[in-house]
């Protein structure tokens, strides 16, 4: 067997890191007066390269590198491509919407790219300490990005809130890792899954699982760990929220899938009801709270909590179908959510003069393109057929039904009826004539980069809604690798040691 050079196992992360470093170096060497916008293009090109690199990884045999810490498999490739795609759209979006004269543009783009490194690494990590490091890489850059608008009161507030609560949650995760290490004597995920059933101190394992779940559920903003979401979304710049509400969540869901399905399949009877409760709570709390919101970004923050709930419903599914459904939902949710935040960025502007639902009155008259796109993405969020949102919900709930959780599916579907209420309110407001047309904001301009971003989001949402077959197949082959017994598990206890090189 020809061993795969370790470096190939982290090729996308490597490309992204180099891009980030390049962006920072160029930023430092450019004369201060020069525009920094082109740095965004550098970052976008680097991200595209990373995306290709992830796709290329499909040709590698499934396996791990760097002393069994990083895995490449269809599962990791699926999430790598997803995250790179989201980051690419977010970069294109920022390119056109960041004001020319805004401060630290170089750092802004670099931080997005570095965040992507963390998220990608998180989906590939099969060793708990690396998981922790990857999570920190992605979190720290998103903490900073959330507070990018320093000059407003809300920006720093969002950053501080996100940072404090986020570090607290990461603390939980780390403590959970420590307990599991204590119980099993290893931090390698395959080994843990092998050792858990026979672990001498079962209580430690259970406590470790619970603490890890708290940490991860915080990252995906599932109720009851969701309180940070609306404030952070409101305070952070919209392009950052487009990223924040999708990419770190996708990575965290990948981690959740790995933890529950790969690390603790033996404790299925334990985490499954827990996630059932969290799913129902998230949907209901998210939707009920969203109904009352006047601020569009807060409304979408609560909607994202509800979507985390729909996604968690997939975890009631058994093995393959559950993992595939959750992966698919992550993609569908990302496509439509990035899209709607792109529209919102354009409508309300970088400095958010128009944050309220009421401000969208007459949007379709002011800007037919943005109005139609807003309706399109909202329709997808409602879950109307022939959009990605529909098949996302469809796979998620059918996974739940096939896993025997019929009530979860019914609660979920009733919740999507409830959710239609507030999505539709925004749709209906945007198609109503504005009585006060004198003071109407001018129609926002759609630039090339933003146009490309919107096109990507629309195309992804439509593809996922009309021909979901290919993506689902990718998600299923990912699910398969997550479920299959890993090569090292056959020889327990020695996998931490590097394989002897021939």
């Amino acid at each position, binding site marked *: 067997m020809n061993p795969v050079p370790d470096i190939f196992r982290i090729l996308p992360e490597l490309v992204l890191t180099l891009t980030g470093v390049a962006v920072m170096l160029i930023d430092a060497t450019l004369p201060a007066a020069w525009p920094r916008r082109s740095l965004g293009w550098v970052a976008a090109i680097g991200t595209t390269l990373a995306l290709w690199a992830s796709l290329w990884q499909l040709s590698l045999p499934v396996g791990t590198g760097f002393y069994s810490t990083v895995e490449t498999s269809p599962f990791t490739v699926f999430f790598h491509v997803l995250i790179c795609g989201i980051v690419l759209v977010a970069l294109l979006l920022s390119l056109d919407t960041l004001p020319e004269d805004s401060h630290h543009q170089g750092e802004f783009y670099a931080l997005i790219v570095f965040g992507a490194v963390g998220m990608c690494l998180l989906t590939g990590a099969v060793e708990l300490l690396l998981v922790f490091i990857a999570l920190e890489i992605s979190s720290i850059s998103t903490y900073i990005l959330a507070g990018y608008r320093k000059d407003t009161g809300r920006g720093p507030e969002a950053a501080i809130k996100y940072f404090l609560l986020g570090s607290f949650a990461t603390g939980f995760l780390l403590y959970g890792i420590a307990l599991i290490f204590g119980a099993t004597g290893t931090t390698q995920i395959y080994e843990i899954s092998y050792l858990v059933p026979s672990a001498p101190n079962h209580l430690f394992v259970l406590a470790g699982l619970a603490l890890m779940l708290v940490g991860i559920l915080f990252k995906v903003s599932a109720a009851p760990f969701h309180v940070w979401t609306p404030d952070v979304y409101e305070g952070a710049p919209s392009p950052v929220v487009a990223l924040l509400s999708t990419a770190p969540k996708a990575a965290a869901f990948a981690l959740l899938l790995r933890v529950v399905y790969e690390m603790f399949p033996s404790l299925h009877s334990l985490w499954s009801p827990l996630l059932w409760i969290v799913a129902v709570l998230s949907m209901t709390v998210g939707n009920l709270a969203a109904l009352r919101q006047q601020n569009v970004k807060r409304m979408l923050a609560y909607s994202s909590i509800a979507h985390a709930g729909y996604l968690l419903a997939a975890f009631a599914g058994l093995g393959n179908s559950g993992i595939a459904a959750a992966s698919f939902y992550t993609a569908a949710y990302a496509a439509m959510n990035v899209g709607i935040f792109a529209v919102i960025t354009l409508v309300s502007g970088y400095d958010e003069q128009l944050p309220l639902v009421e401000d969208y009155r007459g949007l379709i008259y002011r800007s*037919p393109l943005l109005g139609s796109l807003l309706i399109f993405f909202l329709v997808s969020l409602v879950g109307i*057929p022939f959009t990605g949102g529909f098949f996302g919900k469809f796979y998620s*709930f*059918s996974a739940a039904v096939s896993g025997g959780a019929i009530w979860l599916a019914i609660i979920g579907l009733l919740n999507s009826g409830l959710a*239609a209420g507030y999505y539709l309110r925004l749709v*209906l407001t945007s198609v*109503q004539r504005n009585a006060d047309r004198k003071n109407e904001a001018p129609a926002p301009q759609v630039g090339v980069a933003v146009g490309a971003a919107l096109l990507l989001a629309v195309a992804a949402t439509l593809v996922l809604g009309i021909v979901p077959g290919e993506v*689902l197949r990718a998600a299923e082959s990912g699910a398969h690798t997550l479920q299959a017994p890993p090569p090292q598990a056959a020889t327990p206890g020695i996998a931490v040691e590097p394989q002897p090189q021939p």
Partner: protein
Amino acid sequence: MNAINQSILTLILLLPLAGAVLVALVPDRRKLPNWIALITALVTFGLTLHLPAHFVLNQGGFQFEINMPWIENPAIFYHLGVDGLSLWLVVLTGLLAPVGVVASWNAITERRKVFYALFLVQQTAMFGVFLSLDLMLYYGFWELSLVPMAVLIAMYGRKDGPKAALKFFLFTFIPSAPLLVAILWLYARTGSFDFVTLQILIAHGNFPAGPLCWIALAFLFAFAVKVPIFPLHGWLADTFSEAPVALAMVVAGKLGLYSMLRFHIGLFPQQALALAPLLIALAVIGVLYGACLALVQRDFWRLLAFAALSHLSLIVLGIYGFTLTGMSGAVFQILSHGVVDGALFLLLGFLYDRYASSQIGDYGGLAGKLPRAATLFVLASLAMIGLPFLSGFVGEFLIFSSTFIGVSRGWAIAASLGVILGAVYMLSLVQHLFYGPESALAASKPAKDIRFGELAILAPLAVLMLALGVTPSLWLPSIQTGVHPPQAKVSAVLPPSVLLLPSFSIPSPGEGQR
């Protein structure tokens, strides 16, 4: 020819969608969107006429079928087909599209692109509902049909569009959640969404009876709201008074009633039969309740809404009587109601365009000034009431006679009271609008009778009212082939004592007229 038969349904389905995309792309200048929409609608209508022309009467099952895998997992098929049940509904949908476009020609003045694009998407969704034989595909179009409707009601509502739109959307969206769960449950059991497969599996009793009851109920609930059946009609009056004329013509009745026949009775005959007494009772209550409310309305849109509730309930009575005659009459009545209701909507829409009021009290004495409108309105009203030789008569006759003979005399008599009330409110509406002393509003505006363009769309409807009424034998045989299968399945599972109307043959209504 074979190739055309293979692809005709796909063409019918996708052509309006292609037209919608085109409308969205062209600039909104010189009525360009109107023309594109009109041409698309006319061509689509032409295509739908291919179906009755090449429909083979004595060949059972579905025709013009196309069945291709669409999504591998879950196994969703692109499965379309037409039988006697859906044949004329497809043609009717095709016919009403150009009528709707012309009716909106001058009424819709702003954002024409949005209007016509969504109107055409709505068209695709409706064709999809009538043609889909894969439950998931069907559900897709069923849901899709809500969106353009809600948006257009909100955009072009007369007074409080958004409120009516929200009501319409939530009323019809929430019941489809149980419908989806029910479809998923069937899939989880069988691994198939295919209508024909499921029909066979259910008929062979492959399912536990208890859950199946709930599944059937979930189907029924979603359809009953859409029809609507009393007491689920809360959305109807608001939608009728707010929706643009072109959409109001298509909103009520057809989709829900067709779905009941195809998917409720078609899939769950036993469960449907068990619920039939309840549904018959609700239908008769709906007939009377709608008629009584129509009597006291001061707004003609609302009057039309409650009249529609009354007439649609009558069709439900025909469906759940479980007689071949009643079901054929019901399908016939769906067609007739589509034509007659469409014509009434158009005429009232013309009045509203001219006088900007929907209060019946504001009108009076228009017959002298608008003779053509008055003539057509009287014709449509009489067709609605069910005068012999007009379209409303045949369906009503079939439904009443089958109910009277095969179901229950009491219910038939009670429901026929609704028809008498129907004559009262329709004739008094005619009288208030067109006869009597001329009102101040009518005097204040210049008289503009129906223009050529308006006549061009009303004339075919008027001809159809007569044609449906005089020559029911043209349509009934094919309808019968469509209604027969569900009815036959019911008889197969029923004890002989409940077999209904073995000797009641179809040609009798034609004879009855003489």
